[in-house]
Protein backbone atom coordinates (compact mmCIF):
# COMPACT_ATOMS: atom_id res chain seq x y z
CA UNK A 1 0.00 0.00 0.00
CA UNK A 2 1.76 3.20 -1.13
CA UNK A 3 -0.34 5.50 1.03
CA UNK A 4 1.57 5.37 4.32
CA UNK A 5 4.87 5.51 2.45
CA UNK A 6 4.13 8.92 0.97
CA UNK A 7 3.08 10.45 4.25
CA UNK A 8 5.62 8.70 6.45
CA UNK A 9 7.87 11.74 6.20
CA UNK A 10 5.20 14.07 7.60
CA UNK A 11 5.25 15.30 11.19
CA UNK A 12 2.94 13.34 13.48
CA UNK A 13 -0.06 15.75 13.71
CA UNK A 14 -0.25 16.08 9.92
CA UNK A 15 0.35 12.40 9.30
CA UNK A 16 -2.45 11.41 11.67
CA UNK A 17 -5.01 13.54 9.82
CA UNK A 18 -3.94 12.35 6.36
CA UNK A 19 -3.85 8.70 7.44
CA UNK A 20 -7.53 9.05 8.33
CA UNK A 21 -8.59 9.92 4.77
CA UNK A 22 -10.74 7.32 3.05
CA UNK A 23 -9.66 5.01 0.24
CA UNK A 24 -11.48 6.99 -2.48
CA UNK A 25 -9.77 10.23 -1.49
CA UNK A 26 -6.40 8.49 -1.58
CA UNK A 27 -7.07 7.28 -5.11
CA UNK A 28 -7.70 10.86 -6.23
CA UNK A 29 -4.82 12.34 -4.28
CA UNK A 30 -2.15 13.94 -6.46
CA UNK A 31 -0.37 16.36 -4.14
CA UNK A 32 -0.03 17.41 -0.50
CA UNK A 33 1.12 21.00 -0.12
CA UNK A 34 2.76 22.28 3.06
CA UNK A 35 3.40 25.99 3.53
CA UNK A 36 5.06 27.07 6.76
CA UNK A 37 2.49 28.61 9.12
CA UNK A 38 -0.35 28.24 6.62
CA UNK A 39 -3.13 25.69 6.03
CA UNK A 40 -2.23 22.31 4.57
CA UNK A 41 -3.76 21.73 1.15
CA UNK A 42 -4.30 18.64 -0.94
CA UNK A 43 -4.85 18.32 -4.68
CA UNK A 44 -7.52 15.82 -5.60
CA UNK A 45 -8.01 15.12 -9.33
CA UNK A 46 -6.56 18.51 -10.19
CA UNK A 47 -8.53 20.61 -7.68
CA UNK A 48 -7.16 22.12 -4.46
CA UNK A 49 -8.83 21.52 -1.10
CA UNK A 50 -8.23 22.43 2.55
CA UNK A 51 -8.37 19.89 5.34
CA UNK A 52 -9.88 20.44 8.77
CA UNK A 53 -8.14 19.19 11.90
CA UNK A 54 -10.57 16.26 11.88
CA UNK A 55 -9.72 15.35 8.28
CA UNK A 56 -12.79 16.83 6.53
CA UNK A 57 -12.15 18.04 2.97
CA UNK A 58 -13.27 21.63 2.26
CA UNK A 59 -13.06 23.67 -0.93
CA UNK A 60 -13.20 26.92 1.13
CA UNK A 61 -10.87 27.80 4.02
CA UNK A 62 -12.54 26.31 7.11
CA UNK A 63 -12.34 27.83 10.60
CA UNK A 64 -10.59 24.78 11.99
CA UNK A 65 -8.20 24.29 9.06
CA UNK A 66 -5.22 22.00 9.58
CA UNK A 67 -2.31 24.44 9.91
CA UNK A 68 1.28 23.47 9.17
CA UNK A 69 3.06 24.80 12.23
CA UNK A 70 6.68 25.88 12.04
CA UNK A 71 7.65 22.91 14.20
CA UNK A 72 5.75 20.40 12.06
CA UNK A 73 7.26 21.90 8.93
CA UNK A 74 10.80 21.69 10.32
CA UNK A 75 10.27 18.09 11.42
CA UNK A 76 8.87 17.10 8.03
CA UNK A 77 11.81 18.68 6.20
CA UNK A 78 14.28 17.05 8.60
CA UNK A 79 12.80 13.58 8.12
CA UNK A 80 12.57 14.08 4.37
CA UNK A 81 16.26 14.97 4.18
CA UNK A 82 17.21 12.39 6.86
CA UNK A 83 18.46 15.31 8.98
CA UNK A 84 21.09 15.88 6.29
CA UNK A 85 20.20 18.79 4.04
CA UNK A 86 23.85 19.02 2.98
CA UNK A 87 23.72 15.49 1.53
CA UNK A 88 20.89 16.40 -0.85
CA UNK A 89 22.22 19.86 -1.64
CA UNK A 90 22.32 19.25 -5.41
CA UNK A 91 18.69 18.17 -5.51
CA UNK A 92 17.58 21.02 -3.25
CA UNK A 93 19.34 23.47 -5.57
CA UNK A 94 17.17 22.12 -8.40
CA UNK A 95 14.10 22.64 -6.22
CA UNK A 96 13.07 19.07 -5.50
CA UNK A 97 13.83 15.98 -3.47
CA UNK A 98 13.32 12.38 -4.51
CA UNK A 99 11.67 10.36 -1.77
CA UNK A 100 11.64 6.61 -1.34
CA UNK A 101 8.93 4.93 -3.38
CA UNK A 102 9.53 7.27 -6.31
CA UNK A 103 7.56 10.18 -4.85
CA UNK A 104 8.87 13.71 -5.11
CA UNK A 105 8.87 16.81 -2.98
CA UNK A 106 9.05 20.19 -4.71
CA UNK A 107 10.65 22.90 -2.58
CA UNK A 108 10.55 26.69 -2.48
CA UNK A 109 12.55 29.02 -0.28
CA UNK A 110 15.09 31.81 -0.59
CA UNK A 111 17.47 31.25 -3.47
CA UNK A 112 21.12 32.15 -2.91
CA UNK A 113 22.49 33.33 -6.24
CA UNK A 114 26.16 33.35 -7.17
CA UNK A 115 27.42 34.46 -10.59
CA UNK A 116 23.86 34.45 -11.87
CA UNK A 117 23.34 30.80 -10.90
CA UNK A 118 21.29 29.46 -7.99
CA UNK A 119 23.90 28.17 -5.53
CA UNK A 120 21.51 26.90 -2.89
CA UNK A 121 18.00 27.16 -1.55
CA UNK A 122 17.72 28.33 2.04
CA UNK A 123 14.92 29.13 4.46
CA UNK A 124 12.67 26.59 2.80
CA UNK A 125 9.06 27.68 3.28
CA UNK A 126 7.00 25.41 1.04
CA UNK A 127 6.91 21.72 0.20
CA UNK A 128 4.80 20.10 -2.47
CA UNK A 129 4.61 16.33 -2.02
CA UNK A 130 3.85 14.84 -5.41
CA UNK A 131 2.48 11.37 -5.48
CA UNK A 132 4.53 9.39 -8.02
CA UNK A 133 2.21 6.72 -9.31
CA UNK A 134 3.37 3.72 -11.22
CA UNK A 135 0.43 2.21 -13.06
CA UNK A 136 1.83 -0.94 -14.65
CA UNK A 137 0.03 -1.90 -17.81
CA UNK A 138 -1.35 1.46 -18.89
CA UNK A 139 0.91 1.70 -21.92
CA UNK A 140 0.14 -1.80 -23.23
CA UNK A 141 -3.06 -0.85 -25.09
CA UNK A 142 -1.31 2.18 -26.55
CA UNK A 143 1.68 0.23 -27.88
CA UNK A 144 0.05 -1.15 -31.08
CA UNK A 145 -0.59 2.44 -32.18
CA UNK A 146 3.07 3.27 -31.74
CA UNK A 147 4.26 0.48 -34.01
CA UNK A 148 4.60 0.48 -37.79
CA UNK A 149 5.62 -2.72 -39.56
CA UNK A 150 6.57 -4.13 -36.18
CA UNK A 151 8.99 -1.30 -35.39
CA UNK A 152 8.51 1.09 -32.52
CA UNK A 153 8.11 4.66 -33.79
CA UNK A 154 9.71 7.80 -32.39
CA UNK A 155 7.02 9.04 -30.04
CA UNK A 156 6.33 12.35 -28.35
CA UNK A 157 3.84 12.46 -25.47
CA UNK A 158 2.38 15.92 -24.98
CA UNK A 159 0.02 17.52 -22.49
CA UNK A 160 -0.37 20.37 -20.06
CA UNK A 161 1.32 19.75 -16.67
CA UNK A 162 -0.29 17.13 -14.45
CA UNK A 163 -2.06 15.11 -17.14
CA UNK A 164 0.02 11.97 -16.71
CA UNK A 165 2.81 12.24 -19.29
CA UNK A 166 5.54 10.97 -16.99
CA UNK A 167 3.40 8.11 -15.67
CA UNK A 168 2.64 6.98 -19.21
CA UNK A 169 6.28 7.35 -20.31
CA UNK A 170 7.37 5.31 -17.29
CA UNK A 171 5.13 2.42 -18.26
CA UNK A 172 6.02 2.76 -21.93
CA UNK A 173 9.68 2.36 -20.98
CA UNK A 174 8.84 -0.67 -18.87
CA UNK A 175 6.85 -2.27 -21.73
CA UNK A 176 9.53 -1.59 -24.34
CA UNK A 177 12.28 -2.88 -22.08
CA UNK A 178 10.35 -5.99 -21.04
CA UNK A 179 8.75 -6.66 -24.40
CA UNK A 180 5.13 -7.59 -25.00
CA UNK A 181 4.57 -11.14 -26.32
CA UNK A 182 3.26 -11.17 -29.84
CA UNK A 183 3.76 -7.44 -30.22
CA UNK A 184 7.23 -6.26 -29.41
CA UNK A 185 10.53 -7.86 -28.48
CA UNK A 186 12.21 -6.22 -25.48
CA UNK A 187 14.73 -3.53 -26.39
CA UNK A 188 17.65 -1.88 -24.57
CA UNK A 189 16.36 1.40 -23.20
CA UNK A 190 18.45 4.28 -21.92
CA UNK A 191 16.60 6.79 -19.71
CA UNK A 192 17.94 10.26 -19.04
CA UNK A 193 16.09 11.11 -15.84
CA UNK A 194 17.02 14.75 -15.32
CA UNK A 195 14.43 15.39 -12.61
CA UNK A 196 14.60 11.88 -11.09
CA UNK A 197 10.91 11.55 -11.85
CA UNK A 198 10.75 8.68 -14.34
CA UNK A 199 12.73 6.15 -12.30
CA UNK A 200 12.80 7.96 -8.94
CA UNK A 201 16.32 6.62 -8.30
CA UNK A 202 17.54 6.44 -4.73
CA UNK A 203 21.20 5.54 -4.26
CA UNK A 204 21.31 4.35 -7.87
CA UNK A 205 18.31 2.04 -7.58
CA UNK A 206 15.14 2.88 -9.56
CA UNK A 207 12.16 2.99 -7.23
CA UNK A 208 9.80 2.24 -10.12
CA UNK A 209 9.93 -0.85 -12.32
CA UNK A 210 11.40 0.21 -15.65
CA UNK A 211 12.00 -3.24 -17.09
CA UNK A 212 14.98 -5.59 -17.12
CA UNK A 213 17.09 -3.87 -19.76
CA UNK A 214 16.75 -0.22 -18.84
CA UNK A 215 19.75 1.89 -17.91
CA UNK A 216 19.01 5.07 -15.98
CA UNK A 217 21.22 8.13 -16.04
CA UNK A 218 19.91 9.92 -12.98
CA UNK A 219 19.84 13.71 -12.38
CA UNK A 220 21.75 14.26 -15.62
CA UNK A 221 21.02 17.19 -17.94
CA UNK A 222 19.17 15.77 -20.94
CA UNK A 223 21.41 17.06 -23.71
CA UNK A 224 24.59 15.76 -22.11
CA UNK A 225 22.92 12.59 -20.85
CA UNK A 226 21.63 11.54 -24.27
CA UNK A 227 25.14 11.84 -25.72
CA UNK A 228 26.62 9.94 -22.76
CA UNK A 229 24.13 7.11 -23.20
CA UNK A 230 24.79 6.92 -26.94
CA UNK A 231 28.53 6.68 -26.34
CA UNK A 232 28.49 4.37 -23.36
CA UNK A 233 25.44 2.11 -23.32
CA UNK A 234 24.48 1.60 -27.01
CA UNK A 235 20.74 1.93 -26.33
CA UNK A 236 18.17 0.95 -28.94
CA UNK A 237 15.68 3.37 -27.39
CA UNK A 238 16.34 6.63 -25.53
CA UNK A 239 13.66 8.07 -23.25
CA UNK A 240 13.58 11.46 -21.57
CA UNK A 241 11.11 13.78 -19.93
CA UNK A 242 10.16 17.36 -20.76
CA UNK A 243 12.15 18.37 -23.78
CA UNK A 244 12.35 22.14 -23.70
CA UNK A 245 15.69 23.68 -24.56
CA UNK A 246 17.58 24.12 -27.79
CA UNK A 247 20.33 21.81 -26.47
CA UNK A 248 17.74 19.10 -25.71
CA UNK A 249 16.38 19.28 -29.26
CA UNK A 250 19.86 19.09 -30.77
CA UNK A 251 20.74 16.05 -28.64
CA UNK A 252 17.47 14.35 -29.62
CA UNK A 253 18.19 14.97 -33.31
CA UNK A 254 21.65 13.53 -32.78
CA UNK A 255 20.16 10.39 -31.24
CA UNK A 256 17.57 10.09 -34.00
CA UNK A 257 20.22 10.39 -36.68
CA UNK A 258 22.23 7.72 -34.90
CA UNK A 259 19.35 5.32 -35.51
CA UNK A 260 18.06 5.28 -31.97
CA UNK A 261 14.32 5.32 -31.28
CA UNK A 262 13.29 8.25 -29.09
CA UNK A 263 10.44 8.40 -26.56
CA UNK A 264 10.01 11.84 -25.03
CA UNK A 265 7.49 14.12 -23.37
CA UNK A 266 6.86 17.82 -23.78
CA UNK A 267 4.61 20.44 -22.21
CA UNK A 268 1.92 21.53 -24.67
CA UNK A 269 -1.86 21.60 -24.36
CA UNK A 270 -2.48 20.97 -28.08
CA UNK A 271 -0.54 19.99 -31.18
CA UNK A 272 -0.89 23.58 -32.43
CA UNK A 273 0.70 24.94 -29.23
CA UNK A 274 3.54 22.54 -29.76
CA UNK A 275 4.17 23.78 -33.27
CA UNK A 276 4.14 27.35 -32.01
CA UNK A 277 7.18 26.76 -29.80
CA UNK A 278 10.20 28.00 -31.77
CA UNK A 279 12.65 25.81 -29.89
CA UNK A 280 10.82 22.65 -30.96
CA UNK A 281 10.44 23.67 -34.61
CA UNK A 282 13.40 21.61 -35.91
CA UNK A 283 11.65 18.45 -34.66
CA UNK A 284 8.66 19.19 -36.90
CA UNK A 285 10.62 20.49 -39.85
CA UNK A 286 12.50 17.21 -39.96
CA UNK A 287 9.34 15.24 -39.09
CA UNK A 288 11.31 13.12 -36.68
CA UNK A 289 8.45 12.06 -34.43
CA UNK A 290 6.18 9.65 -36.26
CA UNK A 291 3.71 9.50 -33.38
CA UNK A 292 2.40 12.30 -31.18
CA UNK A 293 0.18 11.28 -28.28
CA UNK A 294 -1.91 14.08 -26.79
CA UNK A 295 -2.94 13.56 -23.19
CA UNK A 296 -5.59 15.54 -21.35
CA UNK A 297 -7.85 15.40 -18.32
CA UNK A 298 -11.25 15.43 -20.02
CA UNK A 299 -12.06 11.99 -18.58
CA UNK A 300 -9.62 12.20 -15.69
CA UNK A 301 -5.84 12.20 -15.52
CA UNK A 302 -4.26 10.30 -18.38
CA UNK A 303 -7.07 10.57 -20.93
CA UNK A 304 -5.60 9.97 -24.37
CA UNK A 305 -7.21 12.73 -26.41
CA UNK A 306 -5.59 11.98 -29.74
CA UNK A 307 -2.76 10.26 -31.56
CA UNK A 308 -1.20 12.04 -34.55
CA UNK A 309 1.25 10.94 -37.22
CA UNK A 310 4.34 12.88 -38.36
CA UNK A 311 2.19 15.14 -40.59
CA UNK A 312 0.03 15.95 -37.55
CA UNK A 313 -2.79 13.99 -39.16
CA UNK A 314 -4.95 12.56 -36.37
CA UNK A 315 -4.73 8.78 -36.39
CA UNK A 316 -7.12 8.54 -33.48
CA UNK A 317 -9.22 11.11 -31.73
CA UNK A 318 -11.29 10.59 -28.63
CA UNK A 319 -15.00 10.53 -29.43
CA UNK A 320 -14.57 10.17 -33.20
CA UNK A 321 -14.33 7.27 -35.57
CA UNK A 322 -10.76 6.20 -35.89
CA UNK A 323 -8.68 5.75 -39.00
CA UNK A 324 -6.19 3.17 -40.13
CA UNK A 325 -3.22 2.72 -37.85
CA UNK A 326 -0.07 0.71 -38.32
CA UNK A 327 -1.44 -1.10 -41.36
CA UNK A 328 -4.63 -2.36 -39.73
CA UNK A 329 -8.00 -0.87 -38.96
CA UNK A 330 -8.99 -0.68 -35.35
CA UNK A 331 -12.70 -0.46 -36.12
CA UNK A 332 -15.11 2.29 -35.17
CA UNK A 333 -14.68 2.04 -31.43
CA UNK A 334 -15.04 5.37 -29.66
CA UNK A 335 -11.80 6.28 -27.96
CA UNK A 336 -12.25 6.85 -24.29
CA UNK A 337 -8.98 5.90 -22.72
CA UNK A 338 -8.22 6.97 -19.29
CA UNK A 339 -6.65 5.25 -16.36
CA UNK A 340 -7.46 7.24 -13.29
CA UNK A 341 -8.53 5.34 -10.18
CA UNK A 342 -8.19 1.59 -10.60
CA UNK A 343 -7.32 2.03 -14.25
CA UNK A 344 -9.76 -0.37 -15.81
CA UNK A 345 -11.20 1.93 -18.45
CA UNK A 346 -8.74 1.47 -21.29
CA UNK A 347 -10.12 -0.52 -24.19
CA UNK A 348 -7.15 -2.45 -25.54
CA UNK A 349 -6.95 -2.85 -29.32
CA UNK A 350 -6.00 -6.46 -28.78
CA UNK A 351 -9.08 -6.99 -26.65
CA UNK A 352 -6.98 -7.72 -23.56
CA UNK A 353 -7.54 -5.86 -20.33
CA UNK A 354 -4.41 -3.90 -19.33
CA UNK A 355 -3.80 -5.86 -16.16
CA UNK A 356 -3.94 -9.18 -17.98
CA UNK A 357 -1.58 -7.86 -20.65
CA UNK A 358 0.83 -6.85 -17.91
CA UNK A 359 0.72 -10.30 -16.38
CA UNK A 360 1.38 -11.88 -19.77
CA UNK A 361 4.33 -9.55 -20.26
CA UNK A 362 5.66 -10.52 -16.86
CA UNK A 363 5.26 -14.23 -17.57
CA UNK A 364 7.27 -13.85 -20.76
CA UNK A 365 10.45 -13.17 -18.85
Amino acid at each position, binding site marked *: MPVPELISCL*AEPLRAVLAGLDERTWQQLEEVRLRKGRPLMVTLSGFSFFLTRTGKICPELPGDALIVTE*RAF*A*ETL*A*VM*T*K*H*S*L*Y*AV*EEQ*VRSGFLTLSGGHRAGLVGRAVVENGQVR*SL*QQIGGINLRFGRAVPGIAVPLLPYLLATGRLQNTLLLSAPGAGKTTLLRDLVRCVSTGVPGLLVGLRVGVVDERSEIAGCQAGVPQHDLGPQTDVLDSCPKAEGIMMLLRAMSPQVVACDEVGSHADVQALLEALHAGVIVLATVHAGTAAQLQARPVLRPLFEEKVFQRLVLLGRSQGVGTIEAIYDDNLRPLLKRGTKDVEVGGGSVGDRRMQWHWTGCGGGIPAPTGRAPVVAYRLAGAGN
Partner: protein
Amino acid sequence: MLETEISYALSPLTSAMQTAACHAQRPVANVLQESAIRLQERQAVSVAQAWEVGMEAERDRSALLPNDRAILLSLCAALGRSDRSEQQKHLRLAMERLAQAEEAARRAAEKNGRLWSYLGPLTGILVALILI
Protein backbone atom coordinates in the same frame (compact mmCIF):
# COMPACT_ATOMS: atom_id res chain seq x y z
CA MET B 1 35.47 13.07 11.98
CA LEU B 2 31.98 14.55 11.68
CA GLU B 3 33.38 17.31 9.51
CA THR B 4 34.98 14.81 7.12
CA GLU B 5 31.85 12.72 6.93
CA ILE B 6 29.61 15.74 6.35
CA SER B 7 31.78 17.90 4.11
CA TYR B 8 33.52 15.34 1.97
CA ALA B 9 31.72 12.01 2.18
CA LEU B 10 28.27 13.70 2.30
CA SER B 11 27.11 10.83 4.52
CA PRO B 12 23.67 11.19 6.06
CA LEU B 13 24.00 12.62 9.56
CA THR B 14 23.01 9.45 11.37
CA SER B 15 25.68 7.35 9.64
CA ALA B 16 28.20 10.20 10.07
CA MET B 17 27.46 10.13 13.81
CA GLN B 18 27.86 6.36 13.95
CA THR B 19 31.18 6.50 12.11
CA ALA B 20 32.38 9.22 14.48
CA ALA B 21 31.20 7.10 17.43
CA CYS B 22 33.45 4.24 16.28
CA HIS B 23 36.46 6.54 16.53
CA ALA B 24 35.53 8.29 19.77
CA GLN B 25 35.84 7.14 23.36
CA ARG B 26 33.16 6.76 25.98
CA PRO B 27 31.10 8.66 26.97
CA VAL B 28 31.14 10.64 23.71
CA ALA B 29 30.83 7.50 21.59
CA ASN B 30 27.71 6.55 23.53
CA VAL B 31 26.13 9.97 23.08
CA LEU B 32 26.78 9.89 19.32
CA GLN B 33 25.50 6.34 18.97
CA GLU B 34 22.39 6.98 21.09
CA SER B 35 21.55 10.18 19.21
CA ALA B 36 21.91 8.47 15.82
CA ILE B 37 19.58 5.64 16.86
CA ARG B 38 17.02 8.06 18.26
CA LEU B 39 16.97 10.01 15.00
CA GLN B 40 16.75 6.89 12.85
CA GLU B 41 13.89 5.49 14.86
CA ARG B 42 12.14 8.86 14.97
CA GLN B 43 12.17 8.91 18.77
CA ALA B 44 13.51 12.44 18.48
CA VAL B 45 12.20 15.13 16.15
CA SER B 46 15.44 17.09 15.95
CA VAL B 47 19.17 16.53 16.23
CA ALA B 48 19.33 18.82 19.28
CA GLN B 49 16.62 16.82 21.04
CA ALA B 50 18.35 13.50 20.30
CA TRP B 51 21.69 14.84 21.48
CA GLU B 52 20.22 16.32 24.65
CA VAL B 53 18.63 12.99 25.60
CA GLY B 54 21.86 11.15 24.78
CA MET B 55 23.90 13.58 26.86
CA GLU B 56 21.49 13.32 29.76
CA ALA B 57 21.96 9.53 29.84
CA GLU B 58 25.72 9.95 30.10
CA ARG B 59 25.60 12.86 32.55
CA ASP B 60 27.18 10.88 35.39
CA ARG B 61 30.10 9.71 33.28
CA SER B 62 31.03 13.10 31.88
CA ALA B 63 32.25 16.22 33.55
CA LEU B 64 31.04 18.74 31.00
CA LEU B 65 30.37 22.23 32.25
CA PRO B 66 27.12 24.03 31.32
CA ASN B 67 29.10 26.19 28.91
CA ASP B 68 30.36 23.13 27.01
CA ARG B 69 26.87 21.68 26.85
CA ALA B 70 25.61 24.97 25.42
CA ILE B 71 28.31 24.93 22.72
CA LEU B 72 27.41 21.38 21.70
CA LEU B 73 23.69 22.05 21.77
CA SER B 74 24.01 25.11 19.57
CA LEU B 75 26.06 23.01 17.14
CA CYS B 76 23.37 20.32 17.16
CA ALA B 77 20.66 22.88 16.47
CA ALA B 78 22.48 23.65 13.19
CA LEU B 79 23.64 20.15 12.22
CA GLY B 80 22.05 18.81 9.07
CA ARG B 81 19.96 21.92 8.48
CA SER B 82 22.02 23.74 5.89
CA ASP B 83 24.30 23.14 2.92
CA ARG B 84 27.79 21.72 3.06
CA SER B 85 29.73 24.98 3.40
CA GLU B 86 27.42 26.23 6.16
CA GLN B 87 27.80 22.93 8.02
CA GLN B 88 31.56 23.26 7.81
CA LYS B 89 31.36 26.76 9.32
CA HIS B 90 29.19 25.56 12.22
CA LEU B 91 31.52 22.62 12.96
CA ARG B 92 34.64 24.79 12.87
CA LEU B 93 33.06 27.43 15.10
CA ALA B 94 32.09 24.77 17.63
CA MET B 95 35.59 23.31 17.57
CA GLU B 96 37.09 26.75 18.14
CA ARG B 97 34.76 27.44 21.03
CA LEU B 98 35.47 24.04 22.58
CA ALA B 99 39.21 24.63 22.24
CA GLN B 100 38.80 27.97 24.02
CA ALA B 101 36.77 26.29 26.75
CA GLU B 102 39.45 23.63 27.08
CA GLU B 103 42.14 26.28 27.40
CA ALA B 104 40.10 28.11 30.04
CA ALA B 105 39.58 24.82 31.89
CA ARG B 106 43.27 24.04 31.74
CA ARG B 107 44.09 27.39 33.31
CA ALA B 108 41.44 26.91 35.96
CA ALA B 109 42.64 23.37 36.65
CA GLU B 110 46.17 24.51 37.15
CA LYS B 111 44.76 26.53 39.98
CA ASN B 112 42.62 23.92 41.59
CA GLY B 113 44.10 20.66 40.30
CA ARG B 114 40.82 19.17 39.02
CA LEU B 115 42.10 18.92 35.50
CA TRP B 116 41.61 15.22 34.80
CA SER B 117 37.99 14.87 35.67
CA TYR B 118 37.20 17.52 33.09
CA LEU B 119 39.76 17.29 30.37
CA GLY B 120 39.19 13.65 29.44
CA PRO B 121 35.68 13.84 27.96
CA LEU B 122 36.27 17.26 26.43
CA THR B 123 39.33 15.98 24.60
CA GLY B 124 37.27 13.02 23.47
CA ILE B 125 34.74 15.32 21.84
CA LEU B 126 37.48 17.39 20.26
CA VAL B 127 39.14 14.30 18.83
CA ALA B 128 35.84 13.11 17.44
CA LEU B 129 35.28 16.45 15.73
CA ILE B 130 38.84 17.00 14.52
CA LEU B 131 39.88 13.51 13.32
CA ILE B 132 40.28 13.82 9.58
